[in-house]
């Protein structure tokens, strides 16, 4: 057994950390959140040139054949830098859905080149965290389909060139079968978007599908078999988000330790106070356990054993939710009033961790998933 990074993974980590340290962080975020798309197209091009957009795809798709652990190496660095570019939505989720469905390697090539941005509309207002709760419908119309519904809080749904949505082709709202996936062009007639900023400084959109007509080739994978693809996409996304959260937690831990060593009250650095030393020791323990669980998720997310995969991914999401909350909240607390300011980076990491806790199901949701699998 060896749980250490390979030489290639160390190189990938170093290059990603160099990139985010030079380009990203809170200053970049404050600049970008005022922009139309909320991220930099120029950075996206650079990420393509660095080969990162090709990382998880198979060699016969033109990719690098990276594993989930490789993706986590990147995501951890992205978390460290508050990177805003749509890697999760385009590469992990969109690309993951296309790979799982098969047959659209033409689009994978476009992703790798940096020419195609994707978003996945999986959530609906009533569904909360249940991927199978789909009220959006798609009905056959000649060769193609007509889609009606409302997709909620679609991350980067405003800037994506194409959007993958789940829609019901048969069955009732909460049936697990009868869900199909469709890929829709951003300019499709009847597709209405309402874009908005999100609390972490990124962007999302509500998508309203009013009789959106798509061709037969818009259907991804088999009709009615979309749920297993969505579940795979969700588990890959959770795995990637866990790594991102670990990167964010490390920054908060280091920043907090550094701050308490320099901030003086009562004639000494506040790091000398035992209550704060113990708090930071707890933050470190939370971070280390989160890092272990993020690794477990990456190592088992592709497991053929559904129970093993479920326990690893949901277990990691529970741990990251709890650890992220503790580390984020205590980092703000120990920075005092300064931790509450938009000016310091602490609050931005805290907000991203708060969002990650909710994305793809919060602690309660994944405790339930974990129990059901155990």
């Amino acid at each position, binding site marked *: 057994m060896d749980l250490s990074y390979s030489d290639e993974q160390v190189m990938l980590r170093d290059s990603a950390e160099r990139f985010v340290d030079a380009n990203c962080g809170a200053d970049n975020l404050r600049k970008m*959140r*005022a922009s139309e798309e909320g991220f930099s197209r120029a950075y996206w091009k650079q990420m393509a040139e660095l080969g990162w957009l090709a990382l998880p795809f198979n060699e016969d798709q033109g990719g690098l054949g990276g594993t989930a652990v490789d993706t986590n190496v990147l995501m951890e660095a992205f978390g460290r830098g508050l990177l805003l570019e749509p890697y999760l939505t385009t590469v992990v989720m969109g690309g993951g859905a296309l790979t799982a469905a098969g047959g659209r390697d033409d689009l994978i090539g476009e992703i790798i080149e940096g020419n195609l941005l994707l978003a996945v509309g999986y*959530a609906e*207002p*009533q*569904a*909360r*965290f*249940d991927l199978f*709760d789909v009220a959006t419908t798609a009905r056959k119309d000649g060769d193609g389909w007509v889609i009606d519904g409302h997709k*909620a*809080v679609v991350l980067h749904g405003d800037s994506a060139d194409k959007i993958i949505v789940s829609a019901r082709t048969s069955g009732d709202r*909460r049936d697990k079968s009868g869900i199909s996936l469709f890929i829709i062009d951003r300019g499709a007639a009847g597709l209405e978007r*309402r874009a*908005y*900023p*999100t*609390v*972490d400084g990124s962007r*999302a959109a*509500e998508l309203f599908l009013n009789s959106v007509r798509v061709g037969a080739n818009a259907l991804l994978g088999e009709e009615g078999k979309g749920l297993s693809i969505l579940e795979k996409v969700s588990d890959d996304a959770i795995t990637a988000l866990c790594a991102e959260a670990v990167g964010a937690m490390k920054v908060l831990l280091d920043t907090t330790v550094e701050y308490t060593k320099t901030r*003086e*009250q*009562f004639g000494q650095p*506040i790091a000398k*106070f035992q*209550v*704060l030393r113990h708090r930071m020791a707890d933050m470190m323990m939370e971070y280390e356990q989160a890092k272990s669980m993020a690794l477990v998720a990456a190592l088992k997310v592709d497991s053929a054993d559904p129970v093993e995969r479920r326990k690893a991914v949901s277990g990691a999401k529970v741990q990251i939710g709890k650890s992220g909350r503790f580390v984020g*909240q205590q980092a*703000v*607390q120990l920075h*005092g*009033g300064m*931790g*509450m*300011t*938009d*000016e310091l980076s602490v*609050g*931005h990491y*805290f*907000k991203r961790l*708060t*969002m990650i806790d*909710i994305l793809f199901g*919060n*602690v*309660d*949701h994944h*405790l*339930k998933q974990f129990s059901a699998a155990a």
Partner: protein
Amino acid sequence: MDLSFTPEEIAFQNEVRAWMAANFPADLRAKVEAGEKLYKPDLLRWQKILAAKGWIAPAWPVEYGGPGWTSTQRYIYANEMALAGAPDLPAFGLKMVGPVIYTYGNEEQKRHFLPRILSGEDWWCQGYSEPGSGSDLASLKTRAVSDGDDYIVNGSKIWTTGAHDADWIFCLVRTDDTGKKQDGISFLLIDMKTPGIEVSPIIIINGDHTVNQVFFTDVRAPKKNLIGKENEGWTYAKFLLVNERNGIAQVGHKKHTLRRIRKLASATDMHGGRLADEPGYQTRLAETEVALMALEYSELRFLSGQKTDHAPGTEANMMKVAATQLQQSMSELFIEIAGYYSFPYDGFRDKKGSNEPPVGPAEAGGAMFDFLYGRASTIYGGSNEIQRDVIAKVLLSI
């Protein structure tokens, strides 16, 4: 010992309730229910309504404009106001400097300032914390040097809530640095329009502008606005802090919020059922309600003047810790209701003049805003770490 209200107290409760139903403006109620932030014009309008009724300063002595209520009546009043969704008015004049002025100020100061605080003519802000003096408040360095009938003030105050709306600031300033750090502090009232005062906004993590840094450069402040004696300001400062923490339990507001949480969670889908019936959520909601009961009855016990074997006022330290922790767990319950709809967030963009409806259900709107702002509650007014130090030192003598 008797838990029940007397017939007179029940009559009073009904009177408050009926008056609120008739006089609390519907548009303000709607804004509060939607979790919208209220700005000064709204708050000032509400203050004038309460001032006209004579209910603006429940704790003030009758001679200065208080209604002359018993502590039980004050409790009933605060509870009814909160349950009706009435917003809190800024505490700086009414609950902080007002009592300092009528307790330690001279006749002229009382005559001039107190009526203007009640009417809302003067809005106040608090000049306590400094960039280098947070938890260690007594180490403050803003200096006031005597110059004839005036002091010349130089230095800076930070986290000054509402300084951009305020007419006056009450400041802790250093007038002597030869002895113990607590001994050279004075309590000085300064007109915010005085030349040399600059207010610089600080944007906090929810995108809001509530706090500021205030810079003083050769600010000339008349000595007639010094409270009490020079170099004895620490005594008045501590008196004020106890008052600040006394109000912090906000049991009525918490009941109002918890009622909203329960109602919304019962109407929110989760796993094919309702969020309120999810075992994890149900447990946390019940724990929160128990904690609120404990807070409420602790407040009542302390209020009822039950004899305790420690210094008066120190219960406030315990109430501060318990209340702020409770407030934070309640805001987490709220975030869970909002779910994905806690993400949409335009707090960093100017919404004034925008008629766009909120994204997602209206009640999700304020969830993230309050959650983020609420992280400050365990920091301000003396961090909870400092409160525990005081509890150990003063209450436990260790």
